[in-house]
């Protein structure tokens, strides 16, 4: 429990998880440190009522998803509908390790990764959150259900539906040419 840990240590232990979840959920690195800070401040405020009914990490995922949803709403208000991980400090997908040393294959792999990121941002918020928590964060159905406050059956449905949409989108538009709209506001 938290009694033996300082809050700073809790932040240090979980900051990487919170940052990468927020980056993937929001599809942008813009303001991600502000969002991560908001996650930890909400955690701190909630600590007195946190009774340990779940792991602290699962509780943090729940807060991170809520903060990402608030960010999506803010963007919708500000009409920032289309953002991408490929912003000015981007290219993380280009630095992904890949076993192939063939340059053409590497380029194709990067484009595929970018297409996945692009289609991921076109899913509904809940489908995106389920896919990120399941595949990237390797959370169980139980943990995802708790984080999203959904029944497990609904989590399975969203996971299946989200992957189906992704697969069909990738079949229809396997690799899209990058356009300025990906990196800027609409």
């Amino acid at each position, binding site marked *: 429990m938290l009694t033996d840990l300082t809050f700073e240590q809790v932040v240090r232990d979980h900051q990487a998880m919170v940052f990468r979840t927020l*980056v993937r959920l929001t599809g942008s690195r813009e303001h991600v440190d502000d969002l991560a800070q908001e996650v930890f401040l909400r955690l701190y405020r909630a600590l007195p009522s946190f009774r340990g009914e779940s792991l602290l990490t699962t509780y943090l995922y729940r807060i991170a998803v809520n903060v990402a949803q608030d960010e999506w709403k803010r963007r919708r208000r500000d009409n920032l509908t289309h953002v991408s991980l490929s912003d000015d400090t981007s290219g993380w997908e280009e630095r992904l390790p890949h076993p192939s040393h063939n340059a053409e294959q590497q380029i194709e792999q990067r484009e595929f990764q970018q297409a996945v990121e692009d289609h991921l941002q076109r899913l509904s918020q809940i489908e995106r959150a389920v896919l990120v928590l399941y595949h990237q964060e390797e959370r169980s159905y139980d943990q995802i259900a708790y984080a999203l406050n959904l029944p497990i059956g609904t989590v399975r449905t969203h996971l299946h539906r989200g992957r189906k949409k992704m697969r069909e989108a990738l079949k229809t538009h396997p690799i899209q040419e990058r356009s300025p709209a990906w990196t800027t506001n609409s």
Partner: protein
Amino acid sequence: MDHEQLNPDNSSPAALELDQRLVRALEAAPEIRIPAGFAARVASQVAPRPMVSSTPTHYGDYAMILGILASLAALFGLYTRNQHTFDLVETLLLTQFIGLTVWLSLRRHSLR
């Protein structure tokens, strides 16, 4: 994580290859840059929480026991002074005594 097949309806090699690539892409975590001193900055923004004693005091329980003892003493005093009647005051004190005793015994049981 053990992934079930994404597309069980379509097991063609191309579909399987696409599924595998999709899973690999989804599993690839983004590279992140955490600002130096982020944890210290966040921790400095939270107000220090007042120390809260984790040891329960049970002042209410003690007051309740005193109340029971006082009721018992009053009952005994009234009984020795006026043995031939059982008036309203004694009835109220007896009710209070029984009520407090039952309530306290239930409460102490639930606190274990």
